[in-house]
């Protein structure tokens, strides 16, 4: 090697430069995808958010921050924010704990475990629209004794006719039902992330705890729960982002109703961008939501990192 350098055929500098070129060349496809499918749309959205573009016209006017001001001054839009947060909090709570307990069950060794893991993961592969369509039939209200959804039919069969109702049409139950349906879809992913965290916990810790007299639930809390904090962080961030971005499943289940009980902010974005031909406003709304997600994720990330560090120390 030294001889080659000495002959000037291959110098460390030339080799390094060539490596860099190769690295850049290999980066080009990914970079192109990033620019074309992410950077360009995002920068275009930012640009449109300062205009009154209606989505049709070939021209638009620069209107500074008018769209951003409208977001905070329009009560129809602003009302969707608490609903969105409510949905996000419910969704995160259900899935954080639900996913954890499912992962605990799947972490046990049994010959059915692979099948069960697959079963929990399959809903994630189904389109949100299909989920909405199927579950709307499952939750269908009682039109008469021959015509009702599966849930109401089951309640009738077990003699609980008094509990029958219109789950998606009731202000008090609609959001809960929407969250539970979303949880059915996301439970697989959440539990798989937990499961990955659980499987790297050394068995010795459990054995030691058992010798010390710790029961199952004490082991779960003091070992499993605390050792999967990195998985918890990932899950919480993913759940938060997914919750705040939710649209198609909720739209198909309730169309934001009854009233505005399940109307999340992305429905308003679509409503203004598509139905009201205010693409500029729609873009401004999307950007505000994205910034909101960014801030929340940053805060949660910092808090979780601190917790992770505390546990490690």
């Amino acid at each position, binding site marked *: 090697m030294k001889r080659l350098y000495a002959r000037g055929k291959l110098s460390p500098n030339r080799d390094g430069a060539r490596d860099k070129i190769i690295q850049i060349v290999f980066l080009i496809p990914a970079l192109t995808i990033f620019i074309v499918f992410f950077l360009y749309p995002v920068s275009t959205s930012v640009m449109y958010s300062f205009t009154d573009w209606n989505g049709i016209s*070939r021209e638009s006017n620069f209107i500074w921050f008018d769209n951003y001001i409208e977001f905070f001054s329009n009560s129809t839009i602003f009302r969707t924010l608490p609903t969105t947060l409510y949905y996000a909090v419910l969704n995160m709570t259900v899935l954080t704990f639900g996913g954890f307990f499912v992962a605990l069950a799947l972490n046990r060794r049994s010959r059915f475990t692979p099948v069960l893991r697959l079963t929990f993961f399959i809903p994630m592969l189904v389109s949100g629209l299909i989920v909405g369509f199927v579950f709307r039939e499952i939750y269908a209200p009682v039109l008469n004794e021959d015509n009702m959804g599966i849930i109401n039919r089951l309640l009738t069969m077990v003699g609980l006719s008094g509990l029958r109702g219109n789950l998606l049409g009731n202000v008090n139950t609609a959001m809960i039902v929407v969250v539970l349906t979303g949880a059915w879809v996301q439970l697989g992913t959440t539990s798989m992330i937990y499961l990955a965290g659980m499987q790297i916990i050394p068995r010795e810790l459990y054995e030691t705890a058992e010798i010390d007299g710790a029961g199952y639930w004490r082991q779960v809390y003091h070992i499993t729960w605390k050792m999967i904090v990195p998985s918890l962080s990932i899950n919480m961030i993913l759940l938060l982002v997914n919750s705040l971005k939710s649209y198609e499943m909720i739209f198909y289940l309730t*169309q934001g109703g*009854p009233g505005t009980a399940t109307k999340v902010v992305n429905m308003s974005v679509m409503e203004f961008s598509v139905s009201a031909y205010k693409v500029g406003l729609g873009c401004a709304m999307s950007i505000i939501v994205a910034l909101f997600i960014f801030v929340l994720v940053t805060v949660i990330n910092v808090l979780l990192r601190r917790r992770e560090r505390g546990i490690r120390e």
Partner: protein
Amino acid sequence: MKTNVLRVLALLMSVLLLTVFISACSPSESANPPANENNSADTPDTADPGEDTGDQGGEVPPGKPLEGTEIEIMHSFAESHPVFQEIATKFEQETGIKVNVYESAVATHYTELNERIQTNNVPEIFSVWPGNSVDPYIDSNALAVLTGEPWVERLGFAGAQESVYNGETYIAPFNTSFLTFAYNEEVFARNNLSAPENYAEFVNILETLKNDPEISFPITLTDNYPLMITSILTASFIYQFEPDFDEKVASGEKRFDSPEVYEMYKKVAIDWAEAGYINVDTAPSTTRMGRELMELLDGKTGLIAMGSYDLNVINEMNTENVSLLMIPIPSETNHGALIAAAGNAFAVSGFAEGAEKEAALLFLDYLMNPENNNLICKSMNSLSTFDDVSVDMPDIIKNLEKYRDNPSHGWIVWPPEVQNNLTLLTDVMRLPAGEKEEALKATLAQLHDIWMGTIQ
């Protein structure tokens, strides 16, 4: 050596990928619309209206007809696509103008149209839905003025009202859509009932049906309940007494929550539920038309609120042993009217010029002649917008034609924000009896504010 070959291959692949991405993402001004199996044979090869199109573009040479000119019509009516193709073929034989018929998907029709406007690839004629959605196209100069075209003066009430924007005709409505009620004749006969002549008779029918042990509820409603029911009944009452309701609200002369309007909403949103005419539990529901329609076909309900679009659902179901008839919406003092509006319309591109524009106007006139309009409306199970066109329709809607001249249509042009927020009325319906009235007043006031907000 091997490594170098791999590096060169990698480099080539990267360049190739980059080229593919760049070419795929750059807008192509002469791009054709996506062809599908149904219309691949007539996929248009549309020229950019802004480009020089040789002997087909620019001014029509004097003395030379439009023969050889090629235009495109873009529509989203799957059931009528063969009819449009047939008409286009006949037109080409008679005039020598080639019309490419392109069918877009109904859900993405406007998206595709907007994209084609942005990329200078607009079809010369395209379908639009009358109402609020037309305004932004006019504001964007995407629609040509059609005032003075020969078919304009033949338009009936709904068509004439809804083709005009800012004093000019911009769209050519060719069929009438409507919202009204259908009833099960067998259920009515069993209860010695006949079609109601006014609102009092209508309520009497509901009261009678309520006592029929074989049915669950007298009336069933399609999804988006509050939107439908307020549109169907309340608007019928509003426009019987206030034909210019929209203008008055917009100008601030009338409030949306005025006492008269409140009374009308109260009848439907509170009184009907209290009287047991409708199932409150299913009222704010998202169940689809099919489920409610099965109720009607099975004789478990007497009436259903439905629109002309829903006729297609009925056609797809087995209705051989069930006789259904549609009736107009009863108003306070008479048979009432159809909540009718121009259902679908065509517009000529505001960017079309020269021979293409002339050919487009000629073809539009051809589409609107009684013979072709009849064919189109029949393919859609729909009434015509022209008084001189009587469509050979199924019995279920045939009797509605006589109400076409006196439609009550205003709600169609309510601001979309108001229409979307009519769902707020579901909250009112589900409240305890004592709280409904106050909540209704508050909701109507909120809807008024939303309406006013759209004007500012």
